[in-house]
């Protein structure tokens, strides 16, 4: 375990050093973050009139959902996107060979090799949105709530990672699947709003087939003290089964890897 932490530390410090060469990016990231934030807040505000709300959720509660979505977005920019987009390229160029030869578990390497610092501002902004939500809701946060919320957030990060990883690893068969991740990203936008704002058909789709409900709504409920134990157990269960599926799937997929070019 210690060895893994040390390896990840050196992985990330080198990739941060590389990214620092493109300091101009920070301007684009900040512009894109603030543009998206203003746009999402604006769109969200359209649903709130004097007598209307979104799926029975108050404005501050919706802010919590949006905040969690923004944190997940930061996680995507920092870890999922830089790493998992590379799997496709490794397969295409046959350089996955070198990864498999390294004395480290290959799934860990392909998932955590790179770290892009450009997602950090999103994580901060997400936290600020959540704090606003808590403040305006007049919530009293106790220790138990925080533990519960962090567990749910961790589960949602695991689910998000698993979804990305499963799609990226299908590139072993289909090679060009980068677009599939675009599909995923565009569908996950649905997580900006509480799951209760969707009609029942979509709600079921987003709970049982594409677990968007577990990504943002369930952690938000945990923080707002309105979640039921069954949702919490379900979330933990879903995230762990997803993680196990990715481990199994990666091993299975590697059996079909034919190593282009060598």
């Amino acid at each position: 375990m210690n060895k893994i932490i040390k390896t990840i530390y050196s992985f990330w410090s080198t990739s941060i050093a590389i990214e620092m060469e493109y300091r101009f990016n920070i301007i684009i990231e900040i512009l894109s973050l603030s543009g998206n934030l203003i746009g999402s807040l604006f769109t969200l505000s359209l649903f709130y009139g004097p007598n209307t709300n979104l799926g029975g959720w108050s404005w501050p509660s919706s802010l919590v959902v949006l905040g969690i979505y923004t944190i997940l977005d930061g996680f995507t920019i920092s870890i999922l996107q830089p790493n998992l987009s590379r799997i496709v390229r490794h397969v295409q160029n046959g350089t996955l060979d070198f990864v498999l030869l390294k004395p480290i578990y290959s799934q860990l390497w392909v998932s955590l090799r790179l770290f892009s610092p450009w997602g950090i501002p999103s994580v901060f902004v997400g936290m600020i949105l959540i704090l606003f939500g808590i403040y305006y809701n007049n919530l009293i946060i106790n220790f138990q709530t925080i533990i519960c919320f962090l567990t749910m957030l961790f589960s949602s990060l695991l689910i998000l990672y698993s979804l990305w990883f499963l799609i990226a690893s299908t590139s072993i068969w289909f090679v060009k699947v980068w677009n599939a991740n675009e599909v995923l990203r565009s569908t996950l936008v649905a997580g900006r709003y509480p799951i209760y704002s969707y009609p029942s058909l979509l709600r079921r789709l987003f709970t049982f087939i594409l677990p968007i409900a577990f990504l943002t709504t369930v952690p938000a409920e945990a923080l707002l003290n309105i979640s039921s134990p069954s949702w919490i157990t379900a979330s933990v269960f879903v995230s762990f089964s997803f993680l196990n599926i990715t481990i199994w799937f990666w091993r299975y997929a590697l059996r079909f890897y034919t190593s282009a070019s060598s």
Partner: protein
Amino acid sequence: MSRINLMSKNIKRFLRISFALFSSQYSLMIEYRAEIALWAISGMLPLIMLGIWRESGISLALSLNKDWLTRYFISAFIVRQFTAVWVMVSFEEDNLEGRLSPYLLQPIMPFWRYFFSHIAEQFSRIPIVLIMLLLVFISMPGAFWFPDFGHLMISIFAIFSAFCVRFLLHWLFSMICFWTDRASALERLLLIPYLFLSGLVAPLEAFPDSIKTFALFTPFPYILSFPSRLLAGQEINIIKNFLILFLWGLVLILLGHYFWKLGLKRYSGMGA
């Protein structure tokens, strides 16, 4: 007489080249059918927003009825499918990998190559979009409508014009590739106003007046909201909207051409 001859010769040449570019790009696109299907699915956002708008009580407060919203968002979905533009990404790739150099040697402006690859992609998208629409109408049978022939034709023309304007806008921004090598990052910035001001996530009727006025000063509502409402058969000032769309097109053509000339002087033929 000779002038007319020359003109017809030019037109013939133009048509021949267009057809050749189109058919070659079309066969290229057909090779990537699975990818195109995925792109088409990733344009689902208007359908997701339709779900929220139909459920939300605000639509009643704004006296937007459900049928109106349904038609609007389904049309927006169709318009978005056929106005997809990714020229910045491919132009940057060609520029960085030096593929632009051979293109420049050909007696045809590279612009047309990208333009026809988009058009070809739209044609290969048609069956996928039809399947998706079928699924939408199966899950919401009451929402089905079909515009009459004249209406359909003018809507298709509006969608095509909107595509051209959006393409020109992205083409103009592609010119930044001549100055920096990370221009595609700017595409993400360009998508933000498109997403929020074009009427993709909310009909312009739902906007507060000040923001609606502001949005109408940008090209985005004319790229999406206008053709969608036309296709949905909703009341809209056709002539005025077309005029504004064409005006944007003209401005973008001039700017694009200017920056193309300016950028070419800086082109260093990387990788060549």
